[in-house]
């Protein structure tokens, strides 16, 4: 999530008033942010993805002014016509269809602001633009250009220009192949045989969206008038991005001038900063927040968070939402803003008066019962990750690979699948504890996943328990005794048959079913059963895990 860095000095300069560090540190979280770090000069604060209008110091001070009652309600940014146009080539429809742009006059930049502006753009690229895919922003020094402007689709070698941070001309193709940013973002254009380009009336290149701007229009501390272009694939997102930047400039005195964006079938005057109108019902707000609020209170709270608000009737307030706010989709969002304006720490916590009767998940109760048996026998419970890999799970255990849940893009070759058995996790644990004192008796109760195409998710989750014991004399009799004790304590009778489980020494492994008995002690298969196996682990398996002492084990599966 975006993190904004600034100094108190700069913040106060933009705010136009001095507030103390402590005041700011207290206030920032309550307008919706998370302070990552602060010291005597600087603060590092994370703002959430629903408030990109807070990604600049100008945007933060706009909100803070409301809380300090310096300026309240809807900010008043006027837009006047520049008469300058941007013509959009119809060929861009498939490629990168939307562009919006405007002019800001009379700005002042210094080193701090230039740096802040860069970070602001990058954060918007990330959050609104999905790393420039949906939205890409360019800000240009207007005074070196000759309007009107054209946004067009051109062939890769049709144009060449000096890209930012370079000193010689390159063709568009060369930029994608050789320039740092070109290489990074080339994938956004690789499906196309023409590339987007913005030029002025003398064919000077402003920008090759969404890749890079020209060196010609680079901002400096002397820049006074700028042109902002935002291109992208989502009309709403490009407009939001432009509005957010334009209003941020306007907050420190820039004047916004609109431009005419000329498509082949229509002309649009941009930006359109008309606030969105919504209503909030006071009854709803009171009900949801649980606090007594009058219509006037609500208007106050909304003004404080820089929304326009006017009482329409005793229980209805008309709310005007500035064009840079992306977060308000529904009445409930306005209610959230009322709470923020009120300050949520002032809201008194209160338990609800609803009587409910709780039932535990029976499988958790069952898990606890079987843990009790294992602990009684002196076992330690351990936990393993459910993500494992085929080598560990199959090869090391001498098992043939079968159908299993596989992850599409694993974090590493160690975590490529979801386990079907718990035994290999225990073996891994023993491997990690090779140098610890023996005997080691451990167990795990947990879920495993099997493929089952009949279910909704194509998988079925089974509960299993497994244990291992390792010491110099661990043998079949010991594990048989442990398994029998476990099964009897479940209230079941163990029925054995020989097994050739490949992880165990041949002739020293048994499979079993645990079966319920009826009153007379006869087997009763209708009550369900558990099944499992136990024995002495094969020396090849032991050495696959680089272990050096005999290991005995059981694994049991519980059916519903």
């Amino acid at each position: 999530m975006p993190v904004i860095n600034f100094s108190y000095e700069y913040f106060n300069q933009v705010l136009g008033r001095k507030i103390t560090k402590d005041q700011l540190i207290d206030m920032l979280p309550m307008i919706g942010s998370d302070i990552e770090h602060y010291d005597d000069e600087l603060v590092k604060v994370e703002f959430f993805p629903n408030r990109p209008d807070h990604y600049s110091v100008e945007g933060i001070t706009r909100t803070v002014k409301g809380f300090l009652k310096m300026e309240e309600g809807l900010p008043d940014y006027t837009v006047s016509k520049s008469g300058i146009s941007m013509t959009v080539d119809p060929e861009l429809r498939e490629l990168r269809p939307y562009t919006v742009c405007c002019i800001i006059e009379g700005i002042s930049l210094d080193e701090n602001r230039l740096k802040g502006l860069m970070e602001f753009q990058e954060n918007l690229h990330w959050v609104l633009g999905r790393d420039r895919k949906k939205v890409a922003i360019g800000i240009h020094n207007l005074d070196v250009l000759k309007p009107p402007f054209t946004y067009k689709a051109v062939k890769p070698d049709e144009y060449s220009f000096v890209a930012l941070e370079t000193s010689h001309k390159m063709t568009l193709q060369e930029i994608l192949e050789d320039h740092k940013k070109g290489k990074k973002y080339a994938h956004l254009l690789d499906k196309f045989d023409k590339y987007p380009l913005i030029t002025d009336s003398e064919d000077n290149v402003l920008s090759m969206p969404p890749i890079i701007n020209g060196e010609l229009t680079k901002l400096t501390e002397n820049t006074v008038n700028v042109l902002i272009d935002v291109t992208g694939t989502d009309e709403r997102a490009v407009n939001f991005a432009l509005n957010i930047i334009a209003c941020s400039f306007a907050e420190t005195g820039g004047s916004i001038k609109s431009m005419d964006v000329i498509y082949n079938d229509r002309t649009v005057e941009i930006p359109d900063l008309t606030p969105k109108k919504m209503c909030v019902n006071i009854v709803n707000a009171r009900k949801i927040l649980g606090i007594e609020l009058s219509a006037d209170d609500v208007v106050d709270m909304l003004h404080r968070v820089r929304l326009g608000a006017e009482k329409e009737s005793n229980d209805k307030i008309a709310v005007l939402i500035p064009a840079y706010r992306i977060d308000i989709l529904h009445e409930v969002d306005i209610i959230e803003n009322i709470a923020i304006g009120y300050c949520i720490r002032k809201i008194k916590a209160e338990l609800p008066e609803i009587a409910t009767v709780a039932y535990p998940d029976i499988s958790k109760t069952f898990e606890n019962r079987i843990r009790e048996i294992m602990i009684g026998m002196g076992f330690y419970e351990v936990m393993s990750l459910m993500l494992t890999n085929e080598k560990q799970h199959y090869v090391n255990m001498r098992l043939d690979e079968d159908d299993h849940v596989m992850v599409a893009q694993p974090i590493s070759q160690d975590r490529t699948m979801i386990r079907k058995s718990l035994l290999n996790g225990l073996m891994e644990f023993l491997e990690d504890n090779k140098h610890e004192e023996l005997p080691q008796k451990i167990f795990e109760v947990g879920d495993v996943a099997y493929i089952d195409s009949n279910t909704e998710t194509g998988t079925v989750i089974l509960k299993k328990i497994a244990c291992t014991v390792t010491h110099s004399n661990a043998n079949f009799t010991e594990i048989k005794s442990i398994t029998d004790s476990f099964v009897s304590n479940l209230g079941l009778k163990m029925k054995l048959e020989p097994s050739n489980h490949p992880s165990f020494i041949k002739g020293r492994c048994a499979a079993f079913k645990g079966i319920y008995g009826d009153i007379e002690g006869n087997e009763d298969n209708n009550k369900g059963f558990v099944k499992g196996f136990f024995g002495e682990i094969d020396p090849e398996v032991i050495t696959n895990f680089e272990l050096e002492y005999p290991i005995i084990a059981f694994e049991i599966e519980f059916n519903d």
Partner: protein
Amino acid sequence: MNDMELQKIIDELHIYEKKVLKGLESEGYEAKPEEIVKSQNMDIKSVMSAAGILESRGLIKVQKDVQDIISLTDNGKQYAEQGLPERIILKSLGLKNSIPMKEISKETGLNASEVKIAMGWLVRKKWAVINKGIIEITDEGKNALGTESNDEQFLTKLLEMQQILFLEPSKILKTGFNLLKQRKGIINVKKDVNYLLIVTDEGEKILELGIDLTPTATQLTHEQLKTGSWKSLKFRSYDINAEHPETFPGKIHPLTRIIEEIREVFLNMGFTESSGNILESAFWNFDCLFQPQDHAAREMQDTFYIKNPKHSKLPADDLVKRVSDIHENGGTTGSEGWQYDWDREIAKQSVLRTHTTCVSARFLYEKKPPLKMFSVGRVFRRETITYKHLPEFHQVEGIVAAEDINYKNLLGIIEEFYHKLGFKVRFRPAYFPYTYLSTECEIYLPEKESWIELGGSGMFRPEVLEPLGVETPVLAFGLGIERLAMLKLGITDIRMLYKSDIGWLRDLPVADGIKLK
């Protein structure tokens, strides 16, 4: 030490230890263990172990003396009697001055491997040289004909004495020994260890006080209890500070304990428990929680998508349609929605669930309010394994749905929940895509004098509830359990919970700070 302390030591002595001390007293306060074996009629093992304990209590000193004993092997004995193989060849050379290599075996009666060894030593001792396959005696060889070299002197001496204690040998014997040591199978070297037990001043004091050799009882036995013989027995006092073997009780995993603690809190507060599959469709994990299909959290770099099985089945058509409408235009909620074309194929993708909120969503779809529900389970995020992150961890989430619940109740329930877990909590605004009045819970850590972020909460958005058919407000809150566990257990590396050290598990106290008032 005063007499009382000395008497206490005496009472704690085992009969064997007493006998060894007594034995030493009669031998003049110092003796070899073998002498004690004889005089006290004990076996050597008992004497040595008693001596060890007496030494550890400072009553005697055990002096250890190690010597090398050298003797001849059968082969060595033969060489000592008949001469080393190089000497045999030298003798022949003394007669003939030179012999071709090929004939040497026939000439001397030595076998091929002996010839090979002998040739090496002949050259090394400079007794002969080999010139174009012919062995020729040197001047040194001629001189050697009448004298014994160092190794030969050592062999002769050894033959004469049978074995040599290697304490302070002469220089000649030492070089001879060193030469022979380099050859295989001629001499044996055995370590001979001798002990001497010497009574210390403390031991003498004990002996002066007098040791009673009447047998004392060690282990109370079934026999003694049955026959009543215990009445006339004297039970030896034990040294309470003596070493003891460790006992390791079985334990549940510390994370299980914390999960149990949390479950108990929820159950006490009237929340019914539910659970779900760790595999979910993107539909249940994201779409029905109003996360747009191009949301950052849905990207491959944050979420584990599944290669096999790639897709899940979507639920009933009317639910899918309602969710689709919500995304595209807000449906009937009055919301704007996200305004894009919703794609059912994307919703069908299987994922490892990224939160337990999908369990809450399914529960809300199936049950009617009023209700309180919670679930604990594993969730998955595409994180590399480090001390801070794991690709899977446990989450717990609780929801309350009822006609008249509000935001104050959300804060109230959370406050009560954390209070029961032993924490003070405070709130600040947050953001989650599926809630409004989203609120972060911070708990206070007195030892660090700071607030830390622990869990999220909020009211489910109408865009989430409407498709699920829920008509009341629903409040929700959750937290990551590993983070809480790390705080409670005082660990800074999250991996310890899964790749645990068994020593850590064995040592971790179970009481966890809980005590009787």
